[in-house]
């Protein structure tokens, strides 16, 4: 019996390994940011920043850029491997960038691998680059001294105020779901800096070439989600601006009669505080009510314009179709899509100034 037990134990020790491929940190290159551009002739050009581990106790991670042309993403990876001393692995990929041209042809084929590959996390950020994605990717390693990913931090920082919360999961959610269209951050390079240009608008997986400028990203965020930060500059007249700070904003969608004659009312409630006021009389206290009313008028108009723009372009980044579906029995998807551009959408904005900072 004891011998038998010993044999069994021994056998299980001998059978470990099991053909599992080892990945040792020093012997791989970790892809951090990857960019894809249209290279004509149904080809794409992939550019990748990898961190190169260097020996030594306090050595920084070095960074290196590789590029390759191919038809699909994993083949591009293979091509890149032809130039690298170690295999590139995508497990720590944080940002994937797509050139404008490629994005306008449809991203489905180039996102699929990230959806399919279990190595890739769901908090991967996708973004569109105004111009060529490789410009941003190539700028990346020069920009930052400590190991870390510039583009990722850039997006993360701006998600708090001006960009909608977008990562791979949310993109897939919007792209696969009916009655909802995705949006992605739009980046650009200016001089030797990477900058958020705005929010790229999509029709399903296709970038429609239009975007919401960075400053108005705040307004889009107000329309699409509940959030707590961000500020917006209201222009009254020439040289007369007021900056309000969003303390808390909540949005509700009221959709009625979605199957016959749909009506939408978007109700936004914002609690705000004053950040900066220009052009008022020093002797008098600021008239909050007046500012509230005027802010509601100016911002409300902007919001209405934005919604109309969505309708004109036949896109639904606010997921109104999806909201309608979850509130309507036997929802008629086709009817909704046909009538969508003509649906009366009313934006009901309510701003409440709850404080004026530490000055009256």
């Amino acid at each position: 019996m004891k011998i038998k037990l010993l044999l069994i134990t021994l056998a299980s020790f001998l059978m470990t390994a099991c053909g599992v491929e080892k990945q040792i940190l020093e012997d791989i290159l970790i892809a951090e940011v990857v960019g894809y551009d249209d290279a004509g002739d149904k080809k794409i050009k992939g550019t990748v920043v990898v961190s190169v581990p260097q020996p030594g106790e306090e050595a920084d991670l070095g960074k290196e850029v590789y590029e390759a042309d191919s038809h699909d993403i994993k083949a591009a990876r293979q091509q890149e491997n032809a130039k690298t001393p170690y295999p590139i692995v995508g497990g720590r990929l944080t940002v994937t960038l797509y050139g404008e041209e490629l994005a306008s042809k449809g991203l489905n084929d180039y996102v699929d691998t990230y959806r399919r590959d279990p190595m890739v996390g769901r908090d991967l950020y996708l973004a569109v680059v105004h111009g060529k994605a490789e410009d941003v990717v190539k700028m990346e390693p020069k920009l930052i001294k400590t190991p870390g990913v510039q583009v990722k931090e850039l997006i993360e920082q701006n998600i708090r105020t001006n960009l909608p919360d977008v990562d791979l999961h949310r993109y897939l959610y919007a792209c696969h779901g009916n009655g909802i269209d995705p949006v992605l951050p739009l980046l650009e390079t200016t001089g030797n800096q990477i900058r958020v240009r705005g929010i790229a608008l999509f029709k399903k997986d296709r970038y429609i070439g239009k975007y919401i400028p960075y400053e108005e990203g705040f307004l889009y965020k107000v329309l699409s989600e509940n959030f707590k930060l961000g500020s917006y500059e209201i222009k009254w007249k020439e040289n007369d601006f007021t900056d309000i700070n969003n303390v808390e904003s909540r949005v509700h969608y009221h959709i009625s009669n979605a199957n016959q004659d749909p009506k939408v009312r978007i109700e936004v409630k914002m609690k705000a505080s004053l950040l900066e006021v220009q052009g008022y009389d020093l002797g008098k206290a600021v008239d909050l009510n007046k500012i509230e009313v005027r802010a509601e008028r100016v911002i409300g108009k902007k919001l209405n314009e934005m919604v109309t723009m969505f309708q004109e372009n036949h896109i639904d980044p606010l997921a109104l179709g999806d909201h309608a579906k979850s509130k309507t029995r036997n929802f008629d998807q086709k009817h909704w899509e046909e009538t969508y551009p003509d649906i009366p959408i009313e934006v009901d904005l309510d701003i409440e100034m709850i404080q004026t900072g530490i000055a009256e």
Partner: protein
Amino acid sequence: MEVKPNETKQISPFFVFFLMPGMQIGVGILGFERIIAKEAGQDAWISVLISGLIINVLLWMCFKLLGRGPQTLDLVAIHKDLFGKWVGNAFNILFILYFIMISIILIRTYLEVIQVWMFPGVNVLMLITIILILVYRFVEGGFRVITGFCIIGLIIGSPLFLLNYFPLKYAHFENLGPLLDHSFLEIMKACKKMTLNYLGFELILIYYPFIKNREKSQKWAHLGALFTMVIYVVSILVSLAYYHQDQLKDVIWATLTLWKIVDLPFIERFEYIGISVWLFMVLPNVCLGVWAASRTAKRVFGFRQKKMMVLILIIILVSCIFLDNRYRIDKFNTISSQIGFYIVYLYLPLLFIWQSIVYKVRGHKS
């Protein structure tokens, strides 16, 4: 053949509470959402709830079956009592095959997860051999050891249910509306698809003699089955809120993919830990399945249980070699789900009715 396990081999009725979810929660929970949501969309959770309740009714039937006659303490005895030796044994062999089938599904599906998610190049044959050696050791230890393992498995695995907290940040609970927008038929179809995930409660028909103070165990069995139901309902609710319905249609392992969103400061990819820990949920299942198969085989053929077990393990090993791609595994899963469905929803109630009739007739005679 006398069914009287020694008291040192018996368990307290309370432990049935662990044996229920121990056998019911296996690999199904990692990806059942897609299949059910395909049928019933946002109402899928209602199907999960309904089939969970039906399972409790069937469980009640099982206890009725077991409690009626003086000698009918397990399935083999019931079959013999109702159908005689030959026909009864034919049914017993069917059940043996059924238990083996369940064990194969569990091991193969779990290994498929490992292959797809962690190590594509893993040597499946070796891994299965190792797992089967483990199973052998546990089952050899007897029913008490397996029960203990079920409890440990559940304790180790239960923190994973807390992971449902993370996707809540992304949850769209309005996805659940409008309530009951699917027809009764669609919801029932989803219920049918849900069966495979609830299978395992019928093992009570085999291990019933091993429970001390059997009469008290029914309460715990029902509580255990309800516990399983709660876990499934929570899982599907979270998945429905996290995924868009159209998106859920092509996510094979919805629960596993959901773990991807877990982002702790010290670990970025939680699903790897999840999959590894899940072995402790799968292994007790396999052990129970193999134990039930070998126990029934022993009662039917009269050989020693250990010998039967070795034979069964070899059958499992060989079957796993033939199930070598996603398509075949999926097909096997679907077929087993069907067989399980008919056994549980059709055969058990029929057996119950037949037994009632037979006992009535006998009662009249005497």
